[in-house]
């Protein structure tokens, strides 16, 4: 029914007006209020009358005061600024004044309102998009990617040559020190061999006479080999044993020389 409709419209308008005033907390600051007020002009924001808007806002502040609603400082700052803008827009421009014209200020305010409205519009469009977890979905059964850490070693050619030069020159630059604990003298070897060779009835590899513990370290092994070999030569000279070697680098073998003595 048309009568009812009109009635409802009026109620809605009154409620909106009340809400506008009472529910200041519902606004996000003066710019938000201005944007709401601008809607009552029912024109494109680009054609908005800033002067009319300023008056609407000032009225809004007055009404809030009448209802003894405490307005935050920034609402009052905006009211003061709009009152200033209003006077600028109404009075003819002062040629002495170097500041921006009332039109410039009004244009900027209109721009701000249009921009804020545009941001609200796109925010709504953004939220209306298909959203992950609501409209489309990622993989449900994900597979862990196993992380394998691999260490890669590297060296430069310089490292290599320097290392080699270091090895080859090490002995030359080292002051001569006898490393007693790694050296076996011929006398020591003789003392070890003398009681042992008597049992060598058959050809036995010289290396089998090496003392325990001298085989691991190459320096010690070399020293022991050399001293034992020298000791066997001494024993040959003394006529206790004989030596033989099959060929170059073949094992050196020794045997007690009792048969000759007989």
């Amino acid at each position, binding site marked *: 029914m048309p009568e009812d409709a009109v009635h409802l419209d009026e109620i809605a308008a009154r409620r909106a007006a009340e809400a506008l005033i009472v529910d200041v907390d519902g606004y*996000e*600051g*003066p*710019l*938000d209020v201005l944007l709401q007020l601008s809607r009552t002009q029912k024109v494109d924001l680009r054609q908005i009358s800033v002067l009319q808007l300023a008056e609407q806002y000032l009225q809004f502040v007055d009404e809030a005061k009448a209802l003894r609603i405490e307005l935050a400082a*920034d609402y009052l700052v905006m009211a003061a600024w709009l009152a200033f803008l209003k006077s600028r827009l109404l009075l003819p421009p002062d040629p002495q004044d170097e*500041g*921006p014209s009332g039109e*410039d*200020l009004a*244009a*900027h305010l209109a*721009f*701000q309102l*249009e*921009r*804020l409205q*545009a*941001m*609200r*519009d*796109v*925010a709504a*469009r*953004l*939220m209306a*998009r*298909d*959203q*992950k*977890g*609501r*409209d*489309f*979905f*990622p*993989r*449900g059964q*994900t*597979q862990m*990617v196993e992380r394998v850490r691999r260490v890669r070693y590297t060296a430069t050619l310089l490292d290599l040559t320097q290392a080699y030069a270091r090895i080859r020159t090490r002995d030359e630059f080292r002051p001569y020190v006898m490393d007693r604990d790694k050296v076996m003298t011929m006398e020591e070897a003789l003392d070890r061999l003398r009681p042992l060779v008597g049992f060598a009835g058959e050809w036995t590899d010289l290396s089998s006479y090496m003392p325990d513990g001298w085989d691991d370290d190459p320096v010690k092994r070399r020293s022991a080999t050399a001293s034992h070999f020298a000791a066997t030569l001494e024993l040959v000279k003394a006529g206790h044993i004989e030596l033989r070697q099959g060929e170059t680098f073949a094992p050196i073998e020794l045997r007690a020389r009792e048969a000759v003595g007989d």
Partner: protein
Amino acid sequence: MTDNDQGDDAPRDSLFEAPLEAEQERMVEAILFATAEPISIPELNARLPHGCDAERALDALRRRYEGRGVAVVRVGEAWAIRTAPDLGYLMQKETVETRKLSRAAIEMLAIIAYHQPVTRAEIEEIRGVSVSRGTIDQLLEMEWIRFGRRKMTPGRPVTFVVTQDFLDHFGLETARDLPGLRDLRASGLLESRPPPDRDTGGDEDDEGDDQNEMFED
């Protein structure tokens, strides 16, 4: 012994010869299916055998899945597989309750998305109110926004930009695909326009350049 040697040589060859294209497509398919996160092309190439071309394989894969129940989608500089949006109603069990964003947070998110890189002061200027720390924190925590590089303006303020997660969440290939972006730019509403009572120096241009860079097409 000899057979064995040949067997060892075979995989060696494949180190120098890239797998067939169809095989590369299979590999990209397997990698994308295994994760919920978008994967970048360099990352894909790093995981594929030497000599593969992830970009080409992706292209083939994307065409293969056209019109299917899942789709290969681009998310910023990365790629992911997502269910087709028209089938969302079948996934009630999978629906994730997202934290309700306040109106202020949604507005701020839109401002950051459309104006990025944007400073806190610029957000405040656009909204006409000061930005609450909690709102920024919430968006940062959701990983929908992050800090961008500092502006070359006095004070070198930090900026905010939207993230790959943001693009992923809203099904955007790039920030250029934001709804209505073109119109907003055409109408000049994304230009940084300081109030007329302030000095309008050269700073303005710099800011404009930053923005253009972000949305370069």
